[in-house]
């Protein structure tokens, strides 16, 4: 099984154990229990880092349908309560289900009216148990989540995937972002969480997202950022990253060609 979220939607005609190509005419239609094993609209990388004011995460806005760049304005960052933000990679319908589930949870907590609100670690724990439970039923939520938050002066950044695997770290990246962006994030952030300014954090995330756009087929240069600080969650409007291609002007061919 290829459970690497960067390959969730990489269809191979030769070997595709999940039959996950939505354009395959042989798809069993009407078997609803199989939905999550055939992820359709997919999101790619989510990045997260801790900085001096709190936590910042970034994701592009592409919802891929197979090899097709189907939805170019798919928001993959969602606030949960006032001090938690959720970034999602993987199947977008499972993400919508999760958003609904977490909203219900927050409302239920609010109804009790006991002045207790779920903080980020609570939400993270809940989400990771749900994902682990679903994997144990062999009916996974086909997502990788990044949970960021800021509670009582404490930064929180956690990762949980469709198997229920969890880790907390000052930098987090899903999918191919784990290969491309993690090295840069580790160099730039690890050990400097307390002194990294907001401007620097934005710059780091922009650089990483740009590299992903250059190198990963399912990333767009249109991204969204979210920060969680003592003031709460703030999610940016989508914006485009400038790109640079001029280095290719002098190149002729791919081998011994000279003109």
């Amino acid at each position, binding site marked *: *099984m*290829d*459970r*690497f979220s960067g390959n969730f939607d990489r269809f191979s005609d030769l070997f595709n*154990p*999940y039959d996950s190509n939505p354009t395959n005419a042989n798809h069993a239609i009407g078997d609803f*229990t*199989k939905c999550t*094993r055939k992820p359709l609209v997919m999101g790619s990388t989510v990045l997260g880092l801790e900085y001096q004011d709190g936590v910042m995460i970034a994701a592009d806005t592409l919802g891929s349908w197979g090899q097709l760049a189907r939805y170019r304005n798919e928001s993959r960052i969602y606030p949960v309560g006032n001090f938690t933000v959720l970034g999602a990679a993987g199947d977008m319908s499972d993400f919508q289900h999760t958003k609904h589930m977490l909203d219900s949870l927050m409302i239920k907590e609010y109804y009790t009216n006991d002045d207790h609100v779920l903080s980020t670690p609570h939400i993270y724990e809940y989400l*990771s148990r749900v994902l*682990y439970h679903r*994997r*144990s039923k*062999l*009916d*996974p939520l086909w997502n990788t989540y990044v949970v960021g938050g800021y509670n009582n002066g404490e930064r929180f950044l956690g*990762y949980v995937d469709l*198997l*229920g*695997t*969890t*880790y*907390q*770290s000052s930098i987090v990246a899903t999918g191919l972002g*784990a*290969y491309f962006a*993690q090295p840069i994030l580790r160099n730039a952030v690890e050990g400097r969480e307390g002194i990294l300014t907001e401007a620097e954090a934005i710059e780091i995330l922009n650089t990483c997202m740009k590299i992903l756009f250059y190198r990963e087929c399912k990333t767009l240069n249109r991204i969204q950022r979210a920060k969680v600080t003592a003031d709460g969650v703030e999610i940016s409007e989508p914006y485009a990253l400038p790109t640079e291609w001029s280095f290719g002007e002098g190149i002729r061919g791919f081998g011994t060609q000279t003109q």
Partner: protein
Amino acid sequence: MDSFLPVQVSWTPQTAASGSDFYPYTNNAGTVAGISGGDFCVMAADTRQSFGVGYLINTRYQPKMFKLSNGSVLGTSGFYADGLTLIKRINQRLEWYKHAHDKEMSTPALAQLLSITLYSKRFFPYYARVLLGGLDLEGHGVVYGYDSIGSYEPCLARATGSGGSLIQPFLDNQIYRKTPLGILQAPHTLDQVKAVMRDSFTSATERDIQTGDYLELFIITAQGVDVEKYDLRKD
């Protein structure tokens, strides 16, 4: 990927009721080891968590060894989510036991509890290589080694996980003092045992790519549990 399955199980992707070919395990790897002494026990684990597929490091510091409420120490490697779930279940049972009996569970009793908890998932096992360390009823150090479905035995020194096969022969030599003539057991001081443990992990890190970053030593004595942290190679 099927080689990740620790034991022969009747569950396979094909036989799953839902007909899914989703594979519910991964190997987050890492190494766990334990050595018991006369009145102490030293448990150790590295802190690297790897993705399980490919050569990716998830994080350099995600502890996989935990002090339990009764003073024993439980270390897991393998599928991290299963290991964590196992620890949550065990801690819950310790809590119930405490309220039911008004005392902490002893380490030998906990060892049995851990065994039946693992066996309760015989046909959909926790893919965790578990090691339990603590003090027995007489106050002697004890380490229990397990397989993923609950077979267990107390031992003097045990290593398991991705670097386990590198460390175990070294412990056999240094702790068991196994020779062709039989076991020549030498007394070991806490300092000697700590040194053996640290050197085991620095050596395992040299040759096992999934072991590394930091080493956490849990030293269990009648006074309680001390935790020490050391550097390991990060490449």
